[in-house]
């Protein structure tokens, strides 16, 4: 048995005893039962498995567990807590903040069709809005297409709804700024 690897996942310390080469995706899904990130291409070509690692988007299908050791992972299940922490919300405020503005925008704009890729899309949106709080349509398209290692792909074709939702989330986050 390999030495346990310790990492932070959605704000909680987790210790995992798995082969350090195991893709982080399998660890999140099978060991930690976080099924937000999903298996897509398995080769960092689609974005369905994306999470934030120390605030940067990574593709967990090609990221070994060992690479995440000591780092902070955020999946869509952890986005509400991420938002609460970013806004410095008190415990009572945090309890009423049930969703990250990106998640709320995804619901308000009725973005998902099948929804399979949308976990990765929301991660990409959170990452984009952290760097550019007021992106134009062209900047959103650029971010979702040209950010390495690959475009975020949606086969249902929800790109236009995603753009609407990113812009709605940007407005909501601006309104919530302190």
């Amino acid at each position, binding site marked *: 048995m390999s030495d346990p690897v310790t990492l932070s996942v959605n704000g909680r310390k987790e210790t995992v005893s798995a082969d350090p080469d195991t893709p982080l995706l399998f660890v999140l899904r099978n060991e930690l039962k976080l099924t937000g990130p999903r298996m897509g291409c*398995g080769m960092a*070509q689609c974005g369905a498995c994306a999470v934030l690692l120390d605030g940067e988007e990574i593709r967990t299908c090609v990221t070994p567990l060992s690479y995440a050791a000591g780092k902070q992972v955020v999946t869509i299940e952890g986005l509400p807590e991420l938002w609460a922490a970013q806004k410095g919300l008190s415990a009572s405020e945090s309890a009423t903040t049930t969703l990250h503005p990106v998640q709320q925008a995804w619901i308000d704009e009725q973005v998902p069709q099948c929804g399979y890729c*949308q976990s990765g899309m929301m991660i990409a949106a959170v990452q984009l809005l952290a760097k550019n709080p007021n992106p134009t349509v062209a900047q959103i398209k650029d971010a979702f297409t040209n950010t390495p290692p690959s475009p975020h792909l949606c086969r*249902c074709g929800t790109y236009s709804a995603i753009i609407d939702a990113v812009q709605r989330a940007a407005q909501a986050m601006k309104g919530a700024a302190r």
Partner: protein
Amino acid sequence: MTSNLDQRSSTSPLSISRRGFVKTGGALFVSLAVPLRFNGRADAAEGATSIDPTTVASWLEIRSDNTIVARTGRTETGVGITGYYPQTIAEELNVRPESITLIMGDTDRTPDGGFSAGFLFGMNNVRKVAAYTYQALLGLASTQLGVPVSSLSVTDGVVSGGGKKMSFGELVQGQHLELKIPVKGALPKPDPNGWVGMSSLDGITVDGDPPMKTVADFKVIGKSFPAGHIPDKITGKTQWSCDHTLAGMLHARMVRPATLGSTLVSPGTIDKKLFPTAQVVQKGNLLAVVSPSEWEAVQAALSVAGTSKWSDWSGLPGSDNVIKAFRDYNWDKPSGTKGKAAETTAALQAARRKISATYEQGYVRHAPIGPFVAVADVKADGSVTVWTHSAQSQGLRARIAYMLSIPFDNVVVRWMDQSGQYGRTTLGGDGAEADAVILSQLTGKPVRVQWTLQEDLAWSSVSPAWVSDISAALDASGHIVALHSAQYSPHMFDPRPLGALLAGLPTSTSKPGNWVATEWPYDKIANRLEDVYGMPNLAADSASGGLRGNIMRTPGQRQQNFALEGLINEAAAAAGADPIEYRLAHTTDERMINLLRATAKAANWETRPSPHRGARRSGSTAVKGRGVCVMIRENAYWVGIAEVSVVPGSGEVKVTKFTIGGEPGKIINPRQLDRCMKSGVVMGLSEALKEEVTFDKSKVTSTNWSRYKILTMEEMPEIQVVQLSRDDKGFGGGSEAANALVSPAVAGAIFDATGVWPRKLPFTPANISALLKAKAAKA
């Protein structure tokens, strides 16, 4: 939502029977009037208020707490049924849509079966069930309130009359009531003589004509009610079929044959020191590695793949030669034909002016973002449970039972969400389910099979290549007087499960024919003849069944409309007419005329013939063009207008704007339709500009996203939506069609920009620059 007495007749065609009284809760169960056997299971209980759920299969439960459970075998495939099914039921019951919970797809918990692409059919079912139930509830209220039905009104599930009020929940309080709904049809079974290898795709349908609301009385339908499946998908709460786990479950990775036709010579082996808990499992040409650890299964499967020996095989023509292979095939008679054969042939022969063209497309595929996955549990007692995302649960159930030669009742299919699949499972096959069932049976343990992307893009069924010869006769004024099309393609009805084929287990067969899928928009074309020819799969005799043709979103019509609308655009140009004016001159259909005018106006369409006066077929700067196409499908009318920019020298085509118009009768949910229209355009652009399955003589080679390219967000143009809703034409299908509008409109726009007709999909830079160079050389 409020409704006073609407236009419905107040006589109740069915009566409620009371099965007994209960101390707590109470419910009205609306179930089937004919006996059907269901695999009632203890875990099918739906909560505390369910009364004897193991024996009653209900369409609807009206519960004492004023919640309503609705059950349908049809499923959410991403087009919003979790929005518009509750809307439709709520409309007829006069309740809030939010009070309705949907249970979908599970064969032991839903009554009707049917395929999830059957929007109109399935929605009509639940609408009728709700309408029958509403009348029965009024009858019940009349008795309990002592007020005649004619004096009752219902608002948000509360019945009022004679100064008294009772909610639906109070009406059923303390009772176990049953309402029997008349039905017809049957659940599907494999049928070797049927077109799709199955007896029926529609399942059970509701019979009779209960009084239903008129469109003018609608309060909920027509509003943008949100789709119920969305919030849990946003927070990560949804359990998808890829998330399902069972105690003792093994993870499997399949080891596919070296080529499409290879047979297994010797299976590879596992180094137990490296992979101590992995195991090779084989049946015929079905080879897999299972392990309690998914990562071990992945690694060990790679190792087994590297050491397995397969026979050589090369029986494919190669994707570059596929049209030639079709031309060499002896096609026999058309398998489908529409129109007037003698008159059309005579008119074309007598024509003084005739235009002819050949349109073609290679293989394309559904290409879900999530490769297919399934979990199966085959018990020692012979019972089989499958967790899947098939859009045809009852059909899949029938295919699994047939494969194992076991009774239908021994199989339960449980439906869960998963990646969109765009028609791939409508016929009940083509997934990982057969693999999982076979492996579970062999290992005696629950097995989860996760296909890889490479596997999904190489081994799943495909939308076949086709070629169409089409010609039209024009009179002196340029009006079309006769049109003939002949389309040639392998069939698209082969949903045999890959696992069953490779393992050599029984499967259905289906006829190698195709059908005329167009709905004719041009009543002012006096003579038309559409012929469609079918043939078996390419490499049909190989061990895997070859390139298994299957339907894909807007099947048949997507392909046939490309040829038809392409030729209409060519004829308009030959006649020197604006392509929209030309279409208006060939139809008297008021719905089409209205939509064409509205969409053209929204797109700022400039009336003039194509090509554009600045059109060029060479040069390194961009030229612009615009094109149009129309379609009628399932009582819905559609118009697509594309604006493109083409760099002739490089062949690069950029779609700069797409305007889509839709008139599907009464629009049920404008926002969901807006989303479907825009996303359909994205899928259509992807197909028009990028997609093609490539294969050499032995195997598919487009097996990842850099080889099977689909549209990215940056490549999506501005998409403008025009919706026309009307109250006098019933409902039309809204979730297909949009994808099929793109290719012909873009083709027309490329012609407008360059003066050259692109007749071969996709419009990649390589294809377009080769076409323009060839034309330039001839010019």
